[in-house]
């Protein structure tokens, strides 16, 4: 039997497994990216708060402690394999939370993504022109109001390509969660391969499916980004001049 015949054979025999895996993978990637973005927004915004000369000693100390904790969070989740994180968190918190692998999976990929997103948001915040903040402060807006009404929306727009990238990475990295019994696409493909002892052909199918998923989602998101940015182009259009 030729390579492609075998591929077809395997696909026909196992497509329910693959389809199942695709759903799990996309669920993990999607919820992980969205929740992770949310975590990243909060952490990134908090990390942008620095002790100021005007603060009292206590406030300064609290800010420093918060900054340190957030750094540890980011450093830990970026610095260790997600597989290891999954094992520790899932089993470590199971007695207290009694969560299912899928719930744990969503939480773990979110918290992991959050660590990356925090950095993405932080640099998005940094790329917002300092004048935007001064403008807000000059009309009496508080730090928090400035952050949420002015800085974060712009940071988010700047960070969008990096967010897309994170989504694509999550589609692939969700496979790490098979270590806590979450049956994602890669895992399901693997079990097909293991059952038939045909790895090359099955890997070929997996690769194709991943390619479709990542290609389609990144195109869709890029399209959304374009639409989002379209009416706010930076050139001088004499809007309303006709009015």
């Amino acid at each position: 039997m030729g390579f492609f015949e075998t591929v077809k054979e395997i696909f026909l025999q196992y497509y329910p497994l693959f389809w199942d895996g695709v759903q799990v993978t996309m669920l993990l990637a999607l919820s992980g990216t969205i929740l992770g973005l949310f975590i990243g927004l909060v952490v990134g915004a908090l990390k942008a708060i620095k002790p100021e000369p005007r603060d009292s000693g206590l406030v300064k100390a609290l800010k420093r402690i918060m900054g340190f904790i957030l750094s540890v969070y980011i450093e830990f989740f970026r610095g260790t394999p997600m597989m290891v994180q999954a094992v520790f968190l899932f089993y470590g918190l199971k007695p207290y939370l009694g969560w299912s692998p899928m719930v744990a999976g969503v939480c773990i990929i979110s918290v992991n993504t959050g660590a990356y997103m925090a950095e993405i948001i932080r640099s998005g915040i940094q790329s917002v022109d300092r004048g935007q903040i001064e403008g807000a402060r000059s009309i009496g807006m508080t730090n928090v109001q400035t952050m949420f009404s002015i800085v974060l929306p712009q940071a988010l727009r700047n960070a969008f390509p990096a967010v897309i990238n994170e989504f694509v990475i999550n589609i692939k990295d969700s496979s790490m969660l098979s270590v806590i019994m979450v049956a994602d696409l890669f895992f399901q493909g693997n079990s097909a391969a293991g059952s038939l002892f045909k790895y090359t052909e099955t890997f070929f199918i997996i690769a194709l499916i991943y390619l479709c998923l990542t290609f389609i989602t990144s195109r869709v998101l890029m399209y959304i980004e374009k639409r989002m940015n379209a009416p706010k182009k930076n050139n001088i259009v004499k809007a309303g001049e006709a009015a």
Partner: protein
Amino acid sequence: GGSDSSSEEKTTLVVGMECNYAPFNWTVTEESDTTMPIENASGYADGYDVQIAKMIAEELGMDLQIKKIAWDGLQPALESGEIDMIIAGMTADEEREQGADFTTPYYESEMVMIVRADDALANATTLEDFSGKNVVGQISTTYDEVIDQIPGVNHVTPLKSYPEMINALQQNVVDGITAELPVATGAVEANPDLAIVHFDEGHGFEADTSVSIALPEGSRDGDLFKKIQEALDNIDEQTRQDLMLEVTQRQPASV
């Protein structure tokens, strides 16, 4: 290495295994009489599979090389000729015959369950005792498939390796692990909080618990396959049992 040279006389036999599936194969850091150096990484391989491989190589008058390969990489390595055969505690079945040619079994044992020692299940004797319990097996193996023979079982998503499954068992995420006896013995010796459940005659799994050597697909009629099968046939049952006893006592977890 590789089996690509059909014209020239081959002098080395390249064997692939995970080196992390005690007591069949494992890794140690110090050399001894029973170990073989790992070809592609540091450390030495030991275990039942290594001993079998040594015997076969000796019988064939060939030099033995052990390569340490992740489970997912074993079959592609075999297919591409990177290794001549897989001796990795692997069970042959009809489906797997599609991707490789298997010898007759080189070890047969009993299918058992690993449970927590302090659990009531430690006294179980029949499959029915596991009704409604969470049972896990290793991904794409017979050990996963047979779970469905337990009436009313909660068949949990399989895991990749025994350490992972044992962890899940210890953390109360599952209540039982299907395993063959040698593996279960090793696991229980390393983890005294676990116990083995032997089923009563006729109340256990109907399953093939034998392990076989895999050679590349289509090699069944070849010279090498025949020689290996022959060498295997020359190792009698008593030798096999003695060998297994010996390695289970030697495996690192038990010291």
